[in-house]
């Protein structure tokens, strides 16, 4: 049985999303959530699903942020990559006299091979060819790839990964360069954004390592030290920093090996559990019906609600569910951890006030702490 079959069955006719690095990196963001795992593995379009079940408009990126990002990237890659080369010299200590770049974007490949079919496959094949040449013939004509296309096994599904990054070789090693547009101010960048960048870049590094292996080369030829290029302070002047993604690559490798786990989660569900086709959102009745079906399908899969859920498109849905079920995890991992094996708010408070007596070791330990807290508060505020 392929893993994708039960996932496809569950997804039904609901739209898929394209698999990109951000999406694959998400496997590292909520590895404990069955619901998220299934939806990610099933390549479900989460934004659309989120909009359907919460009724809220999905958050898009501000046009201003997009414009600025594009402007910055254009500036960095202009003039024969002069900026990138200079930064690589300074930050990676690599001496590259010039960039001999190859653009493998769909547009560029179509131009080169008019009428080509299965464009992604062609781009992947070209990427493979060029990487092979770059690794085995260091003096080859090309030393920098843009918009390369790599493949990654995502639970049995081959994901085509458009490399947003640049990959270049020096002396038979591959280095990855990621261009981002959040600023580095007085040497510091937003740590949350940087964390996301590092996770995403790790996906590219991993897929290039897999590619290296597939052509019989060592994965170590792909350097896990990646260069992230950012605007300096408020200007468009570029600065760069090198960060080792080895930790993330290793975690990712393990998480990807867990993707097949999604199929076993689904195996336990009633066979007819499936998402609806995307309704016409203008049609009230149709969308209400689809929402109910989607909610029912989602309710079959256990979520793991926590602080990390806020950026997830299903956040509001899962939050409402946690609220309805009065689970302690609604209040975050700290509270849930302190409540031990007690899972509902009601029960936790009953133990705290002695209305209910613990039945096992886990309950007694949590009950002891909670009732101390209740007593300590009562000494100040008075009994409730």
């Amino acid at each position, binding site marked *: 049985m392929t893993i994708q079959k039960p996932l496809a069955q569950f997804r039904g006719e609901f739209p898929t999303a394209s698999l990109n690095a951000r999406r694959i990196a998400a496997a590292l963001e909520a590895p404990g959530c069955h619901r998220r795992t299934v939806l990610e593995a099933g390549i479900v379009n989460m934004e659309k699903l989120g909009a359907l079940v919460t009724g809220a*408009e999905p*958050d*898009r*990126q*501000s*046009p*201003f*942020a*997009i*414009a*600025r*990002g594009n402007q910055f990237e254009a500036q960095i890659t202009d003039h024969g990559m002069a900026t990138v080369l200079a930064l690589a010299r300074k930050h990676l200590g690599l001496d590259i006299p010039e960039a001999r770049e190859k653009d493998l974007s769909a547009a560029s490949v179509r131009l080169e091979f008019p009428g080509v079919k299965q464009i992604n496959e062609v781009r992947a094949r070209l990427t493979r060819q060029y990487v092979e040449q770059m690794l085995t013939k260091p003096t080859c004509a090309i030393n920098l790839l843009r918009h390369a296309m790599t493949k990654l096994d995502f639970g049995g599904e081959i994901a085509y990964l458009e490399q947003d990054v640049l990959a270049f070789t020096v002396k038979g090693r591959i280095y990855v360069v990621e261009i981002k*547009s*959040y*600023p580095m*101010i*007085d*040497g510091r960048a937003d740590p949350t954004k940087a964390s996301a960048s590092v996770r995403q870049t790790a996906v590219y590094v991993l897929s290039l390592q897999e590619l290296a292996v597939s052509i019989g080369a060592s994965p170590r030829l792909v350097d896990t030290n990646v260069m992230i290029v950012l605007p*300096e*302070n*408020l*200007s468009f*002047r570029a600065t760069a920093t090198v960060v080792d993604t080895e930790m993330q690559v290793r975690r990712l490798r393990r998480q990807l090996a867990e993707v097949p786990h999604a199929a076993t989660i689904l195996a336990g569900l009633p066979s007819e559990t499936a998402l609806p086709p995307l309704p016409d959102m203008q049609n009230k009745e149709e969308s209400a019906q689809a929402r109910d079906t989607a909610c029912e399908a989602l309710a079959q899969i256990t979520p793991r609600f926590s*602080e990390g859920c*806020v950026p997830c498109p299903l956040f509001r849905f899962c939050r409402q569910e946690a*609220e309805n079920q*009065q689970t*302690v995890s*609604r*209040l*975050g991992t*700290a*509270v849930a951890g*302190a*409540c031990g094996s007690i899972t509902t*708010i*009601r029960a*936790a*408070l009953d133990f*705290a006030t002695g209305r209910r007596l613990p039945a096992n070791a886990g309950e007694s330990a949590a009950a002891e*702490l*909670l009732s*101390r*807290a*209740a*007593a*300590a*508060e009562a*000494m*100040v*505020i008075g009994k409730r």
Partner: protein
Amino acid sequence: MDTLHTYLALRAANERKAVAKVTRRHVHISPRPMVIIGYHLAGDIGAPLALIWGTDRTARPHSVVVAEPRNRQLRFDALETFGQSLVEYLSGYVATRLESRSSGETEPVCIDAPQIVVANPATAEWLFGIVGRFTRSLSAAGDPAPAPIVPLAGKHLSFFHNLLPGSSLVLPATEILSTHWQTGQLPSEDLNLSALLGWIAPGEGLDGPAAARQGEDSPPAGPLSDPNWDARKLSPLIDQWHAAKTDEAQSAVFGELDAEIREQLDHTWEDCWRAIHLVNTLPEGDRVARRWERDRRAWTRHHLTMETGTARFRNIPTPVQSAKTLGVLEQATTELQAEMALDDPLVMAAYVASGEALSAKVISVDATRTIPGPRRQVRRPLVIFEPLLPFTRPAGTTLFLVSAPDVEFEILSATGDEVRAQVNKGAVSSSTLSRLPNPGDNVVLSPFTKSEFYPRPQYDDVPWTHRLAEPAEEDPL
């Protein structure tokens, strides 16, 4: 999170309304704070889009709106208007009087200090950290040149950046609310001012979660605007403003833009004032005034360096400065924790719940007890307590009397119904014995005592061990 706050969060969720986690107010509230709210352009932290501010809840706040935030001239014009207003507000806090220090000397200290209220820590970071940082060193020779008030205001803004824990010079509304109330949502959800207010004061016919949802659906409190609003409203209006052929047409578009932005920001203006009002209903903790005095002294020092033109700000602090800052921060952190607990029995209750503090009834006091000291017998009164909550810290634990924090106890033994402790300091001589509690008293012993002052080494040169060879570059807004 300690167990008391876990318990309070559970209760808040269950009661569908925030619960108090204090019985006192732990911040100073100025009679005339200045509320400042702002947006910058998405993806462009150096491009202010709008600011609204004022010191009077009932009056319409001042505002500036930048029709094209990427235009430096327009940016400077807006910052000039804002800067004038800010400097005028701050100039109301320069009167001094002579006050004595703990060392006995007297020095002039500003009678009162300004107070800036912002919606959240992100706004504080943007306004003081970014806008302040990138305007304070702007040169009048630049092109376009900012009015001199812009860098002046930038220096003031920079002063308000990165203040000490326990300072009330800047109050981020979400922060002061979550210091005083516990909601029943995720900690990160408390960063949304409207949602947080929804939990604390849901309003007619709503409960906490419902009011929080409503708050969540209102426009963001900044400094980032709603990206969907950016796409739907802001972006087309800015395009129209550019496309407008005549001055009238342009000012018509500007009027629309102004109204649109104010609609986004106005409710946050009201929210900030509600937050101040809510916190102000609590009685002030005893040690708040001490921290405000520290604030007034810090403000006085800043004011003096501005007067004499010696205010200096570093974009990247030297290792020596960082080390000093860290020392001061550590001390302020410890002090704030201790002072809040000593000021407020409900804050202290968290330590009683965790078992770090002992809440007990005094059974007996042997004030005359002596034990052999290094040279002679020394007086070490013995107090026997009956714990109100089981106390299980091991023998040797040091605790202090909450009502007289310099009285130090050492736990000798603790069982379920009896805790024996000897007094080691603070009430071991005939003149201080009166500080001992009396049999029958209910007392709390806690790990908090009066803060000690540690002398810090004084030096300014960066030694060879901490010298890097890279110069910092300037980059104005």
